[in-house]
């Protein structure tokens, strides 16, 4: 009995110790250019020449994106949105990757890539439309080279891979080439589609970057429910490089994604980037993380906040006056007010628009259903009139 118990204790201790380093990420594996304290560090493989203005521009993105998220959560609480998937804590991963993209590169997001959407120039109102229930997205993916949000976990990684195969067939790899980036989370790495996308991309050497934001939690399930191996190491088994970057370090995310995109454009095939980050908020506004995770974990990650470290860096190196931070805050507040007002004014779609765009041409059956529905609605008007 005693031996058995001891074995059990050892096993559970192993599990605990296996879990700890994973949550902390081995510093030797983690690409970092800016420490949580705001200190600039060098990495042998990822040098980054970046001007003060460029760092300030990234800071502006981070602050505005967080403000959009903050406003959206408030709008949901006030009943203006049905639901919202917060990106709190993942701003650096998304802005770093988003700003690494060239105008001709194509991005395939999940439903949480509000920061990437911002970097691609998509009006945040389009995101609010989706979460308000006014549309399922409804933006033109070609307008900003930013595909529609995909809600089914991992499906978009195959779309991104197919798109990248199209780039190859267009001869748009090599000098002046184009690349694709597919966003997904740690939970998605268990999906068959993501693994199939890795295989397809690998055997066809497609110009694609797989950008996994490992935010440690798939709703209530911690990473160890998805993987026994660090996620970036999976790439090796599929035959392409995988790297782990500090997902709360916007400079490192920018440098690592830039390099991977350039490799893809040059014809060197796919890269998996694991952005090691943390979902500081709930999965969505309907979720309650206090049921499954300790507040100490959140407190520890708050010390690694992706925005604060950039601010500290700018202050420490005297690259920005205090007035700069005030200006950015004011601009973020203005964006917040704009989307708040816009959301409150946003009209519902007309009822018969639900029949639109099922196919490229309306079938007789659908036309009949549309007419029947219109007549049904009109019958209420006639009744009103008769009264």
């Amino acid at each position, binding site marked *: 009995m005693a031996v058995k118990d001891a074995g059990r204790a050892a096993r559970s201790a192993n599990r605990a110790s296996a879990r700890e380093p994973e949550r902390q990420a081995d510093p030797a594996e983690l690409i970092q250019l800016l420490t949580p304290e705001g200190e600039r560090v060098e990495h042998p493989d990822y040098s980054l020449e970046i001007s003060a203005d460029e760092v300030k521009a990234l800071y502006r993105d981070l602050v505005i994106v967080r403000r959009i998220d903050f406003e959206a959560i408030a709008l949901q609480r006030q009943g203006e949105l049905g639901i919202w998937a917060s990106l709190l804590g993942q701003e650096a991963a998304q802005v770093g990757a988003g700003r690494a993209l060239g105008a001709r590169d194509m991005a395939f997001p999940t439903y949480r890539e509000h920061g990437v959407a911002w970097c691609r120039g998509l009006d945040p109102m389009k995101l609010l439309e989706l979460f308000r229930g006014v549309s399922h997205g*409804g933006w*033109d*993916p070609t307008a900003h080279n930013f595909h529609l949000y995909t809600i089914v976990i991992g499906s978009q990684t*195959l779309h991104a891979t197919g798109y990248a195969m199209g780039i190859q067939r267009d001869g748009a790899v090599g000098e002046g080439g184009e690349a694709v980036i597919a966003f997904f989370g740690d939970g998605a790495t268990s999906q*068959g589609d993501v693994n*199939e996308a890795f295989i397809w991309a690998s*055997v066809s050497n497609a110009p694609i970057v797989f950008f996994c934001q490992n935010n440690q939690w798939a709703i209530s399930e911690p990473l160890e429910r998805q993987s026994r191996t660090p996620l970036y190491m999976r790439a090796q088994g599929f035959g392409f490089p995988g790297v782990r970057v500090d997902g709360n370090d916007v400079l490192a995310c920018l440098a690592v994604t830039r390099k991977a995109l350039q490799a893809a454009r040059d014809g060197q095939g796919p890269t998996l980037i694991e952005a090691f980050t943390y979902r500081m908020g709930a999965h969505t506004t309907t979720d309650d993380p206090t049921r499954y995770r300790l507040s100490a974990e959140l407190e520890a990650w708050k010390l690694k906040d992706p925005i604060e470290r950039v601010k500290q860096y700018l202050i420490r190196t005297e690259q920005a006056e205090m007035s700069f931070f005030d200006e950015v805050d004011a601009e973020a507040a203005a964006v917040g007010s704009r989307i708040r007002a816009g959301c409150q004014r946003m009209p519902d779609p007309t009822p018969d628009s639900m029949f639109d765009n099922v196919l490229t041409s309306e*079938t007789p059956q659908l036309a009949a259903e549309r007419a029947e529905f219109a007549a049904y609605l009109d019958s209420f008007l006639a009744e009103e009139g008769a009264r």
Partner: protein
Amino acid sequence: MTTLTLSKALNEGLRKALENDPKALIMGEDVGKLGGVFRVTDGLQKDFGEARVIDTPLAESGIIGTAIGLALRGYRPICEIQFDGFVFPAFDQIVTQLAKMRYRSLGTVRLPVTIRIPFGGGIGAVEHHSESPEALFAHTPGLRVVSCGDPADAYTMIQQAAACDDPVMFFEPKRRYWDKAEVDTDSGLAGALPMDSARVLVPGTDVTVLCYGPMVRTCAEAAVAASGDGKSLEVIDLRSLAPLDTETIFASVRKTGRCVVVHEAVVTGGIGAEIAAQVTQECFYSLEAPVLRVGAYTTPYPPSRLEDHYLPDLDRILDAVDRTFAY
């Protein structure tokens, strides 16, 4: 006019599709070097190259998922799912993505993806190789679902599917792959019957018999047999299951007053059930008898030694025809 098997007619149609549009692609398992397990894509990779006739990894969700991405990039993929029962790993991509993406995008996105599926039984195959899952797709808004019944339709309809800007589920009657008929490969698509129109195959006056795919030939044979008994069957090849050409169906039933729907698929919740509901609603005062369905029993596909009992055949069709006269 040339005499072609249905398989070769598809092959010629696919060749035309590749010739007519440089963005057309063929992708699937074993479609390249091997030419497909039924040789439908035979010789196409040799003539159009590996970039346009793609031997894919062995994963159906991957085939459809990457086809969607290629379509978003401006390509027109024609995918092969090797057998009916293997479509289900791709079911998620077809139903949640392919069928809904245009709707999701408010019409900004077009998805010209054709998915070819050899379907139906009668070839003595092992499990998962004889199924008829078409109703699952006809039930899904955002897809067009069609089936060819003879070599001439195979030749034109596959080209129409490839040229269509919507996703098309293209069901090929695998036990008819070796049927031969005259095919006009010289005239283009301009004068062809549209893909979503039904065709009156055998005109008649007493009973409307509706069918598609592998049952087209069987129903035509039933019409000959019935005429010996003095009954005139009007056999209609539906060709399109989503949308249904209800105009043609209703016109026939209003004339004959009797309707039998024949398919290999399970009758429960099937195409026949949908047609029966619509015919009852729209032709109620013309009907002399309830709409009857002839199809598979509500069981999984049985071992092949039993399939002759399971599949509708000439006698079961004639039996249903007789029953419509009993009311």
